[in-house]
């Protein structure tokens, strides 16, 4: 990882006074994560460049740290950290260029508050938002930005570009400003932090963002990413099993709302669905309800708010989702009388489960499309033959409607983990076959604003027996 800072404001060698590092000497510093070196590849009065080179110790990163025995996916051991600009760089800037970052200079106090002609090069910087995001961060701050993308592997051009760029910035700013910008924006670009984010991070952000962050058009994204929390340890057990699917999992878990809701946001579809499901459950007079695939528990919350639902069971296959639900519903602090109505269990829709027997109704909101078509048969038997609630309310996307989502490429599902999406015809055929086989009646209702041609975005089946 290399950062170079160049000035061409005469006398350029004053850069040494500003950085408190003598251009004549190469210096090394021990940091908690490795070594930092400062040297000057050029040091003339016309143009002077200081280089900060980080030698991050990849083995030290995982060894000898409390809790380092916890993580067990390979990317903990072999990763880009030693080579890229990340929060390690921010730490190095703060420790090695501390007074420059604070805008102080013993020898040249007037220079510290003077705009200089500056250039900075970062080699390399990861940016998952691509070049556009890079530019949107630095251009509003008055820099001329040029980026050099790096391909993943020139031998396999079909793999495309990597997320790494060499970034050049040029502008006339105070050195203190440049360093503050880098201090804040490098971790934002990288979108992860090497250390636990605590309360004092908010203060750091405010301190180093003083004077420029408030007016930055991307300030929300900057704040969110800067304060990103360290990834949850709970996910590790799972990630060991599905190493190649981590991203997919993540998207089904944490970004589910974002990905799908991103599409559906404008029409507030999720609220429509919840409303429609609760309405049906009230109408049929269900007293005991199970939410199969309850996720983070939005329906559970609505059901608990209505005392006519005497018994509420939330089931999900993801233990983590249940933990979220438990948090969101504040299960720990819930009064006993309310808690007695609620049960959260881990379970699966492809295994027969005695705990699901004896309920008035089951709700399955946007769940069935996450099952492999080959496992639908087992699911149908688990629900309609064994659990056998009197009513089943099931919602699923209407694929006919997908043409209305402008950002969704044709033929693609609304969500990465969807194994299929049914058209209205498909859904009706499935629902009617299931109903007749299991001795249920079924009616199908639209959910959300209905279009004359493609119908409503969500379709809902209400089974009863």
């Amino acid at each position, binding site marked *: 990882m290399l950062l170079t800072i160049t000035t061409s404001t005469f006398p350029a060698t004053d850069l040494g006074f500003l950085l408190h590092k003598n251009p004549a000497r190469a210096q090394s510093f021990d940091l908690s994560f490795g070594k930092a070196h400062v040297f*000057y*590849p050029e040091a003339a009065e016309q143009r002077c460049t200081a280089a900060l*080179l980080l030698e991050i110790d990849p083995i030290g990163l995982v060894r000898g740290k409390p809790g380092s025995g916890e993580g067990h996916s*390979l990317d903990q051991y072999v990763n880009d950290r030693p080579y890229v600009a990340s929060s390690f760089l921010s730490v190095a800037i703060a420790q090695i260029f501390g007074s420059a970052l604070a805008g102080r200079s013993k020898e040249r106090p007037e220079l510290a508050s003077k705009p200089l002609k500056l250039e900075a090069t970062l080699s390399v910087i990861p940016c998952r938002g691509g070049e556009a995001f890079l530019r949107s961060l630095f251009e509003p701050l008055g820099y001329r930005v040029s980026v050099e993308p790096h391909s993943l592997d020139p031998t396999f051009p079909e793999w495309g570009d990597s997320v*790494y760029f060499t970034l050049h910035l040029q502008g006339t700013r105070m050195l203190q400003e440049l360093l503050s910008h880098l201090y804040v924006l490098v971790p934002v670009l990288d979108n992860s932090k090497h250390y636990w984010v605590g309360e004092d991070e908010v203060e750091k952000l405010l301190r180093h963002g003083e004077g420029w962050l408030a007016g930055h058009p991307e300030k929300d994204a900057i704040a969110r990413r800067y304060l990103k929390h360290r990834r949850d340890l709970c996910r590790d057990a799972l990630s060991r*099993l599905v190493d190649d699917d981590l991203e997919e999992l993540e998207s089904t878990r944490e970004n589910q709302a974002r990905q799908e809701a991103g599409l559906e946001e404008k029409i507030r579809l999720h609220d429509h669905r919840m409303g429609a499901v609760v309405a049906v459950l009230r109408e049929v007079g269900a007293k005991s309800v199970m939410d199969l695939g309850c996720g983070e528990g939005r329906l559970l919350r609505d059901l608990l708010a209505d005392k006519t639902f005497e018994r509420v069971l939330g089931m999900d296959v993801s233990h983590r989702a249940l933990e979220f639900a438990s948090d969101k519903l504040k299960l720990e602090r819930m009064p006993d009388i309310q808690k007695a109505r609620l049960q959260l269990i881990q379970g699966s829709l492809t295994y027969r489960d005695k705990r699901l027997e004896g309920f008035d109704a089951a709700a399955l909101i946007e769940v069935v499309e996450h099952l492999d078509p080959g496992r639908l048969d087992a699911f149908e038997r688990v629900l309609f033959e064994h659990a056998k609630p009197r009513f089943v309310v099931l919602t699923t996307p209407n694929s006919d409607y997908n043409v209305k989502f402008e950002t969704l490429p044709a033929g693609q599902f609304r969500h990465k983990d969807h194994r299929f999406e049914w058209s209205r015809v498909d859904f009706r055929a499935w629902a009617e076959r299931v109903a007749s086989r299991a001795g249920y009646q079924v009616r199908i209702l639209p959910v959300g604003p209905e279009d004359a041609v493609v119908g409503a975005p969500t379709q809902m089946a209400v089974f009863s027996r």
Partner: protein
Amino acid sequence: MKLKIPELSLVVLIGPSGSGKSTFGRKHFLPTEILSSDFCRGLVSDDENNQAATNAAFEVLHYIAGKRLAAGKLTVIDATNVQAEARKPLVALARDYHCLPVAIVLDLPERLCQDRNRGRSERTFGPHVIRQQSQQLRKSLRNLQVEGFRHVHVLASPEEIDAATIEREPLWNNRKSDHGPFDIIGDIHGCFDETKALLERLGYVVDVTTTGERTIAAKPPGNRKAVFVGDLVDRGPNTPDVLRLVMGMVEAGTALCVPGNHDVKLLRKLRGKDVQITHGLAESLAQLDREPAAFREKTAAFIDDLVSHYVLDDNGLVVAHAGMKETMQGRGSGKVREFALYGETTGETDEFGLPVRNNWAAEYRGPSMVVYGHTPVPAPEWLNNTINIDTGCVFGGKLTALRYPEKELVSVPAGAMYAKPAKPFHPAEFQTQALSPQQAHDDLLDLADVIGKRIVTTRLHHNVTIREENAIAALEVMSRFAANPKWLIYLPPTMSPPETSQEGSLLEHPAQAFAYFRHEGIPQVLCEEKHMGSRVVVVLCRNEDAARRRFGIVSESGICVTRTGRRFFEDLAFETELLAHLREALDRSESWKEFDTDWVCLDCELMPWSAKAQELVKRQYAAVGAASGAALRDSVETLKTAAARGADVASLLERSVERASLAEKYVTAYRGYCWPVKTLADIKLAPFHVLATEGKTYFDKNHLWHMSAISRFCKGSKILIETGFIEVNVTDEASEQAGIRWWEELTSRGGEGMVVKPLDFVARGRRGVAQPAVKCRGPEYLRIIYGPDYSIPANLSRLRSRGLGAKRSLAMREFALGVEGLERFVRNEPLRRVHECVFGVLALESEPVDPRL
């Protein structure tokens, strides 16, 4: 005085305070058999005499008693129990667990109890308490039988109490020490000719004496014994001779017989009870009317003596007329007898007006095989280790016997249709039914069979524990990603590297792998080339018909799954093509015939790595390659510029140049395992174990056998490749050197390395089974696992301290589970038993282990 009590009973001691219950209990029972109310008071309140804690104490006492009875343990209740209200829940408890309540009453003079109590300082209650208890006891005495105590023993003096001894009697149904072998015979219903024919088919010599009193004897072959499942009588043409035969054999000790509902109904009629003369009883009565009265009396006595069911062969076998659920086996109660005779009904009736039977066999999880009859079926079918062998002889079907322990079915056809069944027992649907009852049942697994902490008993490694949190992770993965569980008969174990090499620039070296096996006392090993691709388990059926028959899967003929049980190919057409290619290869080599099978399960590696791991390669390996390459290149350039103007950066520059070259090596290493896959021809599949075929696993064959069996069908294929190997004797220096050279040669060509296996698939080491394989990876392959810079001496020395214990233990447990699951599958055990192992391997894989090992 000898007090006889059943071996499994709930013994209720009854007597006032001071009557000596605890002393009596201590004298005759194990301390753990006795549950004392005083002790329970102490448990919940720290004070054995705290009367305020009585309710809580009894809750605890009843709870523990329930657990003990469920486990089949005799239990003694040491409390006063002088009130009917106190005894009532105990009788109910005994009933719940189908065991007999026994009352032992210590009926001493009140004065004696009072005296004893005065001598005990902790008893603070007044004399009125004991007076009251004595009165209550008197009142209770005559009602104990009515309350439900089948055995009541009253000891009325200290002398009687002293003289009493307890004798535990086995239940009548307990024939665990009878090991057979047995021939279990289905519902006969008066079909004597067929019975005779069947017995003769089974090797019995049947002898009918017609002179004098008619007797029928049957002499079994060897030490075999017949077991009749009941319903000897009614409907058929010759009930008297059937009775004569069975009574004779039982008397002679060559047969056992359990009663059927028809037999019991006949008994009631013979005993003068008012019963409906339906369902073929009329035939029996008419036939018996022609017999002497003494024969009818003998018949009645015989049926009356029959025991509801038998538990045989150390719990290996249970025989009952209508079946027997696990919780009732070996127990005695009215309910058990009812179940044995009639089974359980749901309370509904079907379209023929017959009661709908509860399918207890579908729920059955017990270890004992249950053989029963009662309901005619077209053909006996196994379901969860139970089998119904009533093949409707009297309705024109067959008379069937099951040979135990051979599990072999023998039947003879009925001579005629002697009676018309109320409902056709050849239902039309059966003819078209594609799946066996077990297969249909296995379409759905039960969550209760996988969740929570589980202990799986394996042949190779005793008990393997699956922790709850690992089961939680496995359930999610299994539910969201795994293939149909019916295809998942095996998941491969993880593999451990050897001890870390301490010399030179290497982390792993064959010398340590050889040393491991030498240390385990295993001289012969096989080194196999380790292909760098993705693990794939292939289950291949000869055709769809074979898949349906053996796997209960319709319209598919095989599958390729990953080591975590997912379908290997998202593109099903690709899978179909690969399976077809493999099928042709097996056709060509006539391997189907060689293995006498129409399906095979193979353990393979599929290349290129990038075929399955494309995303991983891009996200992890190529990304690190791109970042390190670009960053180090720029660093080196800048350092050179600085050095040129005289900055003191020489050692930093030198280090950076080296690291840049290591980054290039890193990229070279993973690149070798990647190439684009457009058609099947771009794929290479290297099978290395023939895991199983019909009725067989091949864990008893050594690896040379596996290599040669595989070689036969790989020949002539452009896609299937053989695995290079070399035999090494780890006690011979020269042989070891040859192995090391072979490895060096492999790895210098960019190969991943080799796998060292004991020659035998399952090899016993110093303590139990040795590691089935140890991988020894090459230095350049390790670069992509440990990072570009791992070979820098300062890094290497730190990486050398790596602990192998967890990895080895994991490999061993997964291996044991994998073998166990597959062995269960070839033994035709129910899917849940196979799935338990497969699920277990997946669960263990979520245990935290250094992923670089």
